[in-house]
């Protein structure tokens, strides 16, 4: 599947600035990163097995967050994160056939959980479907096409 050319839209410049220097950036709510004494982290999303911790505890938010779901502020900063992640789920996407009937190569797409908490819809690289499992450690790397913005790919750590 051709990725095409990526352009900025003015809303996520911090993400693409970081990508240009091979760093993954997410949003962070400064107010919620230092909660007052006795504050209780969000527990809205308790998984069926109850194993995971609250999502908002460290105030890391996805790159396209426009406000903090805990305190409501739209004053979100950008922060570089580790680039480490684990695999949540995945799919081998078989693109629609081209006009001439030929089939573009499949793409390995995933939902990944950054070490800092947020999930990203991602594309995997350097691994086949047979090597995938829930919790597989991943690390980000960046592709730098000759035209357009750099973009992240996740590979097994």
């Amino acid at each position: 599947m051709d990725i095409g050319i990526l352009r900025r839209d003015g809303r996520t410049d911090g993400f693409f600035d970081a990508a240009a220097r091979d760093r993954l950036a997410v949003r962070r709510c400064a107010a919620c990163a230092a909660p007052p004494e006795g504050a209780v982290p969000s527990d809205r999303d308790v998984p069926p097995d109850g194993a995971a911790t609250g999502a908002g505890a460290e105030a890391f938010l996805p790159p396209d967050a426009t406000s903090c779901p805990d305190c409501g502020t739209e004053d979100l900063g950008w922060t570089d994160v580790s680039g480490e992640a684990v695999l949540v789920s995945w799919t081998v996407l078989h693109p629609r056939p081209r006009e001439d009937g030929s089939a573009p190569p499949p793409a390995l797409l995933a939902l990944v959980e950054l070490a800092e908490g947020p999930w990203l819809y991602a594309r995997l690289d350097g691994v086949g479907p047979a090597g995938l499992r829930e919790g597989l450690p991943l690390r980000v790397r960046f592709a730098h096409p000759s035209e357009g913005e750099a973009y992240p790919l996740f590979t097994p750590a």
Partner: protein
Amino acid sequence: MRDGAAIAGLGMTELGRVYGRSPRRLAADAVRAAVDDAGLALGDLDGLLVSHGLGGSPGIELADTLGLRDLRLLTQMNSFGATAGAMVSYAAMSVLSGAATTVACVFADAPLKPKQSAGSAYHRDAPEWYGFGGMTAALGFRSVNAFYALAAQRHMARYGTTGDQLGAIAVSTREWASRNPLAQMRDPITLDDHRASRWVSEPLRLLDCCIVSNGAVAVVVTGADRAADLARPPVHVWGWGQGHPGHRKARGSAFGLVTGAATSGPIALKMAGVTPSDVTQAQLYDCYTYTVLVSLEDYGFCGKGEGGAFAASGALGPGGSLPTNTGGGQLSGYYMWGMTPVSEAVIQARGDGGDRQAPNDVILVSGNGGILDHHATLVLSPHRKGA
């Protein structure tokens, strides 16, 4: 006895590759048909609820198109695939409160264009992509297929759900469709056909995905006492509920594993005064086979993680313990968003199911919107509540 709310009319246009009529025109035709079906006149309507659709779908200007005057209720509603259930429940509440007496609810859309594949109607493509959302699409997330595939794969990894279990849903749904003259795909299929159908986004194959349709469906909701005097048998609205879990896309999220049906179902069933074991048939939103599987769990028809085994047991097909999507659903019947399950429920509640008629005492209707983000549930019956 206190009056209830009932569906008194059902109107459906031709569905499928229907060209030459705008969504607004289709919507107007469906409302006229629903009013006529009920034995009413357009002038009897004092409420109109219009569903948001994909694009080009009508808004409240539909009232002008129909020449409706002195309405007491008029709005466009949108909770994606949950809208139909939300409309019927809002209409029922309006009738019960006295805010309106006779409310039409309509969905119309025409995403299919001549000489265009069905898949392309819900697919994005572009030479350049803008912003973070554009990047996600560029990386491969260009239709909802991949997002539902992630949900299904997560369930498989967590609970051992299999592709054949998804296939069992495709097969039983098609078996029902073969008995429905309104269904677009009526040739029976086998599990081998499912296994041989091309991958769309693993673990979803082509036969795990719904069809796409042009057309419109409308219902008329009024008081149960009044409905009893109209042309067709009333379909009583026993209960309704919504669920919007708002899963954060972050550590700990139950995305893909638990849906809003886990919330909307118990609310609607409690209001109706029934339990899952009382439900005699289910009309479940089936944009994908997986949507059915996870909905069965969240409504309590089986335990969490047991949806695959339940579907593969034959429970959902003709003669099964929980006849489900008896008109062929969206997988094989017609894709009118939440109006697909609502319309089949009305047909079944009236006993008009013909070769596919299933026990209809308690019918659960499920709408699903977004990526398993929004649910609306209705409990319908040919009987008065508590009777």
